[in-house]
């Protein structure tokens, strides 16, 4: 009896909840697999999908967003072996799962910790509350491929932002596998959009895009490129998160900074009276 022939996987982009190939038809080889080489047009399509998803996701209840992020952790737990097979160390997969759980719990707590009533000197009700900034472009760290990716996506989306993520060019397979997890976690299409390929090709388009509200440069290791991207981002005053230090410890407590930098504070006043 002959040995069974394996069914190989096609690694594709993740845009608007679907898995398209690049409109450019290009790919590059990583770990013996063809991976999509996303184009500038793919990046723009991803922004359109992310923008379309903002209203529903930002308008969802915090309880609902928290449950969906927790669902991501459940799905990732179930596919633990798949990520290990792709070369992700078991401890990193576990940390990535735990990170989804950690951020899931923040959805309905951050507005309490980061907002609140302000005791103004007058007869006014005055309340500050955080809101998502909108569409966020994210450059994932080159490594650790899975934990780093989760650590930049989860804090952006838990508060109601939608993201276009440029995955690590050297290790895109865990990123595409994570997209498959997200696609089966009740996360609405377009909340997370994932591009594989060259940072230098897609990210300048995202940095200059007038319908992107913020850019997270965490994974940009070339200081000159980071400065160029920041200059482009100034055109519509995107909120900018600068590159992470090379020795950043992704296993440490992440703190709230990655969430708060992508939030706007809205303060509402109303007089008190009879």
């Amino acid at each position, binding site marked *: 009896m002959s040995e069974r022939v394996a069914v190989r996987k096609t690694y594709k982009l993740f845009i608007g909840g679907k898995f398209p190939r690049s409109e450019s038809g290009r790919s590059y080889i990583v770990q013996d697999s063809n991976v999509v080489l996303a184009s500038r047009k793919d990046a723009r399509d991803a922004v359109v999908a992310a923008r379309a998803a903002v209203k529903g996701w930002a308008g969802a209840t915090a309880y609902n967003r928290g449950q969906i992020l927790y669902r991501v952790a459940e799905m990732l737990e179930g596919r633990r072996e798949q990520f290990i097979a792709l070369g992700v160390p078991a401890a990193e997969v576990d940390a990535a799962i735990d990170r989804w759980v950690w951020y899931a719990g923040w959805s309905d707590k951050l507005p309490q910790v980061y907002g609140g009533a302000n005791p103004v*000197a007058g007869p006014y009700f005055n309340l500050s509350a955080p809101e998502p900034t909108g569409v966020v472009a994210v450059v994932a760290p080159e490594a650790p491929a899975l934990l780093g990716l989760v650590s930049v996506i989860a804090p952006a989306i838990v508060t109601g932002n939608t993201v276009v993520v440029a995955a690590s060019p050297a290790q895109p397979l865990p990123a595409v596998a994570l997209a498959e997890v997200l696609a089966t976690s009740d996360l609405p299409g377009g909340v997370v959009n994932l591009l594989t390929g060259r940072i230098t090709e897609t990210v300048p388009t995202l940095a200059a895009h007038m319908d992107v509200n913020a850019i997270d440069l965490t994974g940009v290791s070339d*200081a000159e490129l980071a*400065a160029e991207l920041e*200059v482009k*981002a100034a055109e*519509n*005053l995107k909120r900018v998160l600068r590159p992470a230090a090379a020795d950043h410890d992704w296993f440490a407590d992440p703190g709230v900074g990655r969430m708060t930098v992508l939030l706007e504070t809205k303060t*509402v006043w109303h007089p008190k009276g009879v």
Partner: protein
Amino acid sequence: MFEYAPAPESRSVVDIKPSYGLFVDGRFVDPVDGGSFKSINPASEEVLAEVAEAGSEDVDRAVRAARKAYEKVWGPMPGRDRAKYLFRIARLIQERSRELAVLESLDNGKPIKESRDVDVPLVAAHFFYYAGWADKLNHAGFGPAPQPLGVAAQVIPWNFPLLMLAWKIAPALAAGNTVVLKPAETTPLTALLFAEICQQADLPAGVVNIVTGAGGTGRTLVEHPGVDKVAFTGSTEVGKAIARAVAGTRKKLTLELGGKAANIVFDDAPVDQAVEGIVNGIFFNQGHVCCAGSRLLVQESVADRVLESLKRRMAQLRVGDPLDKNTDIGAINSAAQLERIRELSEAGAAEGAERWSPACELPERGFWFAPTIFTGVTQAHRIAREEIFGPVLSVLTFRTPAEAVEKANNTPYGLSAGIWTDKGSRILWLADRLRAGVVWANTFNKFDPTSPFGGYKESGYGREGGRHGLEAYLNV
């Protein structure tokens, strides 16, 4: 309209020197490589004083003085003692409030009743508020031991000269930073009086440095490599240039920029209160307010009634001598600003909107612009899209709440918005949907040191005021 007798505030309480140096390292010094310029009273065009213009060597000296003070004195000082200096400054501002108010009105052109009742009291309140944070930073919600950034470069505008100084300096010092501040070139005098107050408070030398000058001085300051933090309030155009200038550096940036706020009036709003709010929204401080309610969105069914009442109210506004206690609208801050207001107003008429101003006698000397409204404005008109920064209101109408949201958000800005309605659920529904950092419901242009202020989108980023305002000056 009955006549008022003039009720001018005396300017004898202020001792304006013929010339001012730069305030560097605790002393007033002559510029090394700068020049000088004149600050005038915009209500009379009279020269008030000659002021030093800092060159790049002067800016460098100020930054070095601030660095030295940060490392040797202010950084190591316990928060408890920093607090006491800030409380001292707050008290001195209260004690010298009359002097500050008169000088502000002279240099800026704003009515004395605003500088006396709004600006200066808020300045003192701001220092009081942040003084109390200086020894409580560990409990501010930014982790166990948040650290200051170092030297802060701060560039402020001319519309609220002393208040913007307070918004910048109070949180910076409370968090443990030292500052180099550049006031606007048309309104440097109250900042220089504030420097005297720092001396009077025995604030250690170099903690606060004031470098006067124009845009070039500001650019040199924000581009100085010895600066760790840049805070700017002003135009969106300059804000973007600063964002580009600090790209790739370690400098933390906060920006408070332009606005084109919608003030939305529904058919169930009490008309008289709404009209007071509209007037306050656009004519407060001559409309030189980044959060001014410069686009009135009024529900079609009540538009005629609201406009009739608004025009009647506008005819009562008293335009003239800023030092007169009866004055509602003072002088436009500068000839250049007056020119910009005129140019945009002419564009409004040329593009087909209908212009109206009450009969209004304007003084012969100085810079003046009568309160003006435009009706029949569409969203495509320049006066509906560009910040005029003057006493000019563009009136648009809407039919449904959804249309009001759509029109209100149809701008690259997102600083503030107003809502006038008697229906509570509608206020909350609308407040959720407006992309603006401050939403005033059944009120407008209210400010408080505990209340975070700042914009969405191209109105900038970061917040000033409240606990949020500390974040801009800490390494968090």
